[in-house]
């Protein structure tokens, strides 16, 4: 009787053996890291590591494709680490490292795969080919895997450069741009599975490709891929929380903006027959802004708490802080209009698109044009 009603069973009862295996791997990895490197961590870093275990496990349980991604990234990264044999020069000698999985090689593969995924998604969208769209998803997954491997290996490489140089790779504009591409792509793939629609990939991958373009320009023109030691202000466990939380926000806002573009095009009859229904796009857009807003709120609060510890005040009206507030106010207004007034339609889509420009300015523009305390990623 109960089964016939399609009653959702509690999460724990729905878990398969693979879920438990995944949980065991995550826990074993985390605890191993704690026992091996615990002596070099302060209490907060230990807490972050321990809290990461259940967070990753639950992410995998709720979103199944996360499990193979995690295992593949972990296994390949460990393989890459073993290839180094503790010697940085192996980067140029060992075959796998040189062409595939040294940090820079892996990140360049990520860039290439994102580029291919963009083209494939557009091909699939224009020719209505489900196969091409599926290929687009696969390419995006591969790009994500390569990107995460690149970041993991980069983390290790930074310690090979010097024990005091080593740090999590979220400390400068180059590293966070890689993170931005990865987080945006992951969030998109989550929605893709949830809404059973792959067409939006063509739009979302455009903004990721723009990020890739920036990474390439930044690498070739400015040599920004070099690992630099942390300035004293950034040497804090807060960085591990503040930066990723911020990029969930930025990623989600970017997705929302691209959905806004799709909405506006479809509303004018352009590509309309190839895109999902307007209500679906609208709903995805709302979901993206909601999750982005929630994480951006957390990120800003974490940032304020970090500022209180590093700069002597939780709010200094520094340009970056102020622009974060502006971004926050912008999406707060968006949500008010939609939730309270119940407004839908092109106006909110336009607003989401404009919101991306505000977000981009807060993200890069502030570093380019304004000076202040957040001057870690100058162009």
């Amino acid at each position, binding site marked *: 009787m109960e089964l016939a009603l399609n009653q959702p069973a509690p999460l724990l009862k729905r878990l398969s053996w693979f879920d438990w295996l995944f949980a065991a791997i995550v826990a074993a990895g985390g605890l191993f890291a704690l026992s091996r490197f615990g002596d070099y961590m302060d209490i907060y870093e230990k807490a972050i590591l321990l809290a990461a275990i259940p967070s990753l496990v639950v992410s995998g349980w709720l979103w199944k494709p996360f499990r193979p991604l995690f295992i593949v990234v972990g296994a390949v990264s460990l393989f890459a680490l073993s290839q180094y044999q503790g010697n940085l020069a192996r980067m140029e000698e060992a075959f796998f490292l040189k062409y595939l999985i040294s940090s820079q090689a892996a990140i360049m593969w990520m860039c290439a795969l994102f580029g291919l995924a963009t083209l494939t998604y557009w091909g699939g969208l224009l020719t209505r080919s489900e196969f091409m769209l599926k290929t687009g998803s696969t390419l995006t997954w591969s790009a994500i895997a390569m990107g995460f491997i690149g970041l993991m290996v980069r983390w290790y490489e930074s310690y090979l450069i010097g024990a005091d140089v080593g740090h999590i790779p979220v400390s400068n504009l180059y590293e966070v741009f890689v993170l931005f591409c990865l987080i945006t792509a992951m969030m998109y793939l989550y929605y893709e599975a949830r809404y059973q629609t792959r067409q939006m990939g063509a739009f979302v991958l455009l903004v990721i490709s723009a990020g890739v373009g920036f990474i390439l320009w930044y690498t070739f023109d400015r040599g920004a891929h070099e690992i630099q030691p942390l300035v004293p202000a950034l040497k804090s466990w807060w960085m591990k929380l503040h930066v990723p939380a911020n990029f969930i926000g930025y990623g989600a806002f970017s997705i929302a903006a691209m959905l806004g573009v799709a909405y506006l095009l479809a509303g004018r009859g352009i590509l309309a027959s190839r895109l999902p229904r307007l209500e679906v796009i609208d709903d995805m857009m709302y979901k993206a802004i909601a999750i982005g807003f929630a994480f951006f709120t957390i990120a800003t609060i974490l940032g304020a708490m970090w500022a209180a510890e590093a700069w002597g005040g939780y709010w200094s009206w520094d340009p970056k802080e102020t622009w974060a507030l502006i971004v926050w106010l912008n999406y707060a*207004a968006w949500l008010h209009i939609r939730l309270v007034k119940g407004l839908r339609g092109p106006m909110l889509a336009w607003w989401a698109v404009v919101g991306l420009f505000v977000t981009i300015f807060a993200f890069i523009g502030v570093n380019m044009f304004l000076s202040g305390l957040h001057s870690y990623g100058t162009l």
Partner: protein
Amino acid sequence: MNPSSQSFGKSLFELLSSMRFAISLLSILAVASIIGTVLKQSEPYSSYLIQLGPFWFQVFEKLGLYDVYHAAWFLLILTFLVTSTSVCITRNAPNFVREMRSFREHVSELSLNAFKHKHEAATTQQPETLAASAQRYLEGQGYKVRNLPREDGVLLAAKAGSWNRLGYFLAHSAIVMICIGGLLDGNLIFKAQQVLGVKKIETRDLPQSQVPAISRLLPSNPSFRGSVQIPEGSSASVAFFNVADGYLVQELPFTVALKQFRIEHYTTGQPKSFESDIELFDLSGKKIREATIAVNHPLIHEGVAIYQASFADGGTRLTLRGWNLFAPAASSFPVEGAVHGNAALTSAAGDHTLEFIDFRPFNIEDMGGGIETPRDTMSVLGGSPVSDNRSLRNVGPSFQYKLRDARGQAREFSNYMLPLQLDGRWYLMSGVRESPNEAFRYLRMPLDPAGEIDSFMRLRGALLNAELRPEIAARFARQALPQEAWGTEIEDKLKSSATQMLGLFAEGGFQSLGRFIEEKISEAEREKVMGTYLRILELAAFEALQLANQQAGLPAPQADQATGWLVRDTLNSMSDLFVYGAPIYLQLMQYDEVKATGLQLTRSPGKNVVYFGSLLLTLGVFFMLYVRERRIWLRIKPGHALLAMASTKHTIDFEKEFARHAQALDTLVK
């Protein structure tokens, strides 16, 4: 109360709690905030004056744009935001609480039939039986259910996601709380005191102890954010904070003493950590505690947080050798000084004031040296993220000073203590610039084989000494000519041109030599003549060095390549002396470094209020966005069941859920 004022009050209430007003406030706040990010805040007023010109400077000052976020009008916007949010909460509160509690049991069948989301099913079951299984189902779905018997059957009233409304309260009270916390930590108290005339800012540059009481804030001041610089071995019991074009002195409830300030560096030379070993004493002088603070690791003592904010020189003592650059002798004189201090210099070159600005124990310079970081495609693709810092080098200590002449004109100098190797030879470097926004131009003085600049100075003195010139010229002519030509007219001619060359050079370096040639020699021959003259000058200079060494009782210089370069470099460097802009060069011989730490001291009673507000905000946002409020009614009559569903937000999820429940009802009725 008369009706018109009542209606005014009511419409004000309506306005303040309206959505449109709230959105407008959010937008105005956002736009106003932009101003402060575009115009640099809290700069010295003089730099605004230069930037904006006198007219706009005054306009901007009146608008409070130099400190937007503390301007009265900005605080007014914030006050409106707090008021509007509070009014909004008060207005919605009773209704929301009722909604959260209510199951809407009194809904009529007629209105249920009018629902957009409704589903009907025929049933053979008894109303009570069906109600029981439906209740189990709904409770399994996370609903709270009320079973209400009606004359002809049952009404199930169910609700889920009431926390959505709780989220509204949490998020909106959080905004009020954060703003109030922020205001507590702002400078409102001082502003009030300033308006009342009890306190005023100090604009004069006074020693701390002479700042009058009207510009001093007592240790009991509940909130402040000030900074202070303490040299090693000194202490401070006040902090300063800048307001508009002046400052205030904040007296501290304790004394901070700096034992040591340390900077650690990475191997690449970038700073790795800044740390201060400090001691706290109470005002009677009793030691309270000792601590080491660093960036990201402040010390919190009795509600006052002490942060590592910056560092500076704390008055490094310098032992210097002064050289008179235009004296016809290689004479130096001793100079003593300390950074941030002044010294009077009386020398043959006139009276000067020496103002010591700074001392840097390290200078990391990119020496280039032909190491190009490869950035071609292949090296990046398969490449290494290891940065190539081999060209970075610590070139040792330097000190900065201004030399002000009797007329008050000053130039800024930056002299290195250690020599630098350039093109394979060693030089002492002295940088000069006219104003702070220029780059330094460097004078390079060659070192002799002993590694000193004494040979340079001796040769320079000899070349400037007019009395030695005939002797130098004579020696040169004898060296240059074969013995047969000695005593002839040729020798006299060569002697006199050498004397002339030396005289011209001593007047203004290569420039005056060049001017002479331009005036006297036809254009076609200039280049050839210039070559000859330079050759004469170099050879004569070598003789001058020999003579100078002889007079100083030193061994004669080797006639080798090193001496050749020494002579050539000396001529170049001497020529530069005429544009160096100072008659004196100061050579750093010894230093005794004293560092100073820059601390920031804050007391922010509102911090915990803000943090608590932030926690509520986070919870509130999640409840509002991720808890959907939904209601279900199931009206069961014999043979018939009606399912109706409602939500405040009609999302796709809602449609899906409704479809699921409708399907469930079809299963249940069987």
